[in-house]
């Protein structure tokens, strides 16, 4: 299983901060995003508006996922 962590407005809409995704051999980051979109249609996940990390490293949508990975869906925080 992969853990997908939600924050901020995504967490508010979903009502939870973590969801689990069963992962197969060819599960990609983009699949995790699609999973969130289907489960919570009200969450808008435009690619430019979020930063995805896998195990605390910035990840592209085509990065493969494996069991026990943690995917974080974050906004871009530049620091004011």
């Amino acid at each position, binding site marked *: 299983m992969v853990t997908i*962590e939600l*924050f*901020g*407005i995504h*967490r*508010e809409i979903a009502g939870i901060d973590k969801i689990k995704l069963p992962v197969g051999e060819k599960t990609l980051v983009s699949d995790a995003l699609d999973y969130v979109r289907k489960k919570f249609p009200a969450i*808008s996940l*435009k*690619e*430019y*508006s*979020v*930063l995805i*990390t896998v195990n*605390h*490293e*910035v990840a592209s949508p085509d990065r493969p996922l494996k069991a026990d990975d943690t995917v*974080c869906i*974050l*906004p*871009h*925080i*530049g*620091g*004011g």
Partner: protein
Amino acid sequence: MLETGLHVAFDDCYNFVEALIYSLVPDNIPVRKRVYSTEEENTQYMKILAEIRYRPAGVVGGYTDRILRVDLSTQEISIQKLPPDFKHMYTGGRGYALKLIWDETGRDTRHDSPENLLVMASGPLGNEPGFPGTGKFIVGSISPLTDTFIDSNVGGHFGPLLKLAGFDALAVSGIFGEDAVVLIDGDNGTISIAAAPVYDEKTDKGALSFGARLLQDVNSGEYSDSLAAVVAGEGAVNSRFGIVNSLYYDRRRQRLRAKQAGRGGTGTVMRTKKLRGIVVKSGLPRANGNNAVDKKLVRQAGASLQKVITHCDHLQLNLSAWGTTGLSEYMNRFHIFPVNNYQFGQSPEAPKLFASVFLNEYFSKNLPDGCYYGCNLACSKGVETVVLTRGPMKGMTVSVDGPEYETVAAVSNMGIFDPRFVLEYNWYCDEYSLDTISTGVTGGFFMECVERGFLTHEDIGYALEFGNIDAVDRMLHEIGRGEGFGRIAGQGVARGKRWVAEKYAARKGLDADEVMTELNKFGMEVKGLEFSMYVTRESLAQQGGYGFSLKGPQHDETWLIFIDQVHREIPSLEDKANALKWFPLIRTWFNATGLCKLPWIDVRNPEAAGTPEPVKNTPTLAYYIDYLNGTTGSRKDLQDILDDSERLQLLQKLINLRQGKGTRENDRIPLRAMSPVFPHEYQVRAEYYDTWLKDNAGDRAVPASPEEKLKLLQEEREQAYQKLCDIVYDKKGYNSQGVPKRETVTKFGLLDEKAGRLLKEYGE
């Protein structure tokens, strides 16, 4: 009657003659120093002590080329006309403040020296309702905490109104004999020094309360958005970290709102000068307030940025709904949220302080907020109705402007996770005029001193411990009123450390300097300024961001912690050093020009994804460059504005050198900013640190014992920071001691005789 009639007739004649003279002179002339001799001639509560009449200079391309000079020692009011090229060398805003303080203060100038200047200035891009975030101004001075230049950035209407009243900057020098106010009336063409009104004890001690009365008194009992004020309360008298409150009338909320120039003690400087408040008035229209050279370009740039904010903010940080409190959950998740004097970066209690709590339970909703017109990011949240449950105003119903993230985290830093207390702490700090950050970091330091046995409850007078709300509340009021332990705490961490060291050394028969060595490990200050509210030990880039910051560890120069620690977008030393060169230049450019940086840095433009370095958000920066060129008529590109900003940074570095705060030694940061200090800090994240050591210790074997692991970690982190210093200094054109090289200063046109002598002192 006859006496009165003659008096009126004389006054009418005098006014006629004065008006005739005034119409014949171009700008200003102190036609008379008006001294009122009877109560009837005074404003109801204020005795005018000195006054000039003037004609406000118009704004052209964002500038008036005028500085208002007020010397409180001599009661002289004058208008300094600047040569047209001044603004090309010294942008701002911030540039004006730096140049004035470089020229008119010296090595021995301290915050309370008469020659110290208190400068307030917006910048060429302040005051444009067609562009988001143009309500910012800076307050610059020699700081009571750092003894060198500080510029504190603040929002509201004061800066724009000052410009409309005819001035790019206000520079106050001298020290008055009694409390005074300065009144700048751009509509009637008068500038006055008046004896500060005396209302009642409660009102006079506060900032918000005094400012509210003052703004009504100068406008026949009415608030108006044609007026704004800056004020500082009794906490600014009694501490070194007094703030300047910027008050303005919000038509939507129908009340006064307050923003703060929070860092570095500029409010303390203000009260040291016996300056109780400054009011500025101008009824000129705000639209096209800068008289832009290319109004169409300005409109287009503003519309483009507003569109990005509208479409993107609610999908990202959601600042328009949550304000900056939205940062709390991200900081907590990644161990960046300060808890118990930065010992920890995370707490299971932190969700009590997340944005949703403030939004659902406290913030006013359905009110477009903002600190200035035209900003649709509108992140200045507030709570309309709070009944105070503590302190001298217990039972009073107040409105709270805030809290910002930093205030929330200042409270968590003291081990408190009560959102209601955050609001009361916010309000009292504003009313007293205390920096919420310095108060929270100083409180956290003393709490840890108690925890570690350096101080006892008897030393303080009560149980100042992490999580003790009553104790924090007591400390806050003691600082504000200058009572009890507050007299010590109000000095800040740097001076507080010395007090603790001497006390503990005397008690234990130790050497005070050795005790200081221990306290320096967890006393969170650099150059005398307390850290702002981010735990940096897992971000080497942010350690540098705080250490190299010219004013002290305030994040407005550099905030790289997320792209370094969380995104890992700048993994190598070279990457970090490049970021530490670039980001401070662009971030402080916003401070120089009268702009808020949040619409750029915290709202990612969709087009940024297709650029080589999306984190720089250059498509949005392009709007700012258009706004600049459209306003001023310049033809600058991004490199030009970075060069303008670098000139100002170098000038600030020269001031730091002169004041003894400009070398590598002054860029040292506490051990806690780099590493766990004590074993329990390692143990709470033992797995993480064990892995870090395996991955980073190179050829050095990872020891088995926890004590030796901690020692190795500390050594590795200290070495990494020193290596970072070397590479960053090189990139900035400094020598290995952090002193700018002669050729660097020459390149930016700053090598005059004074700078040359100074560099020679430091071996350049």
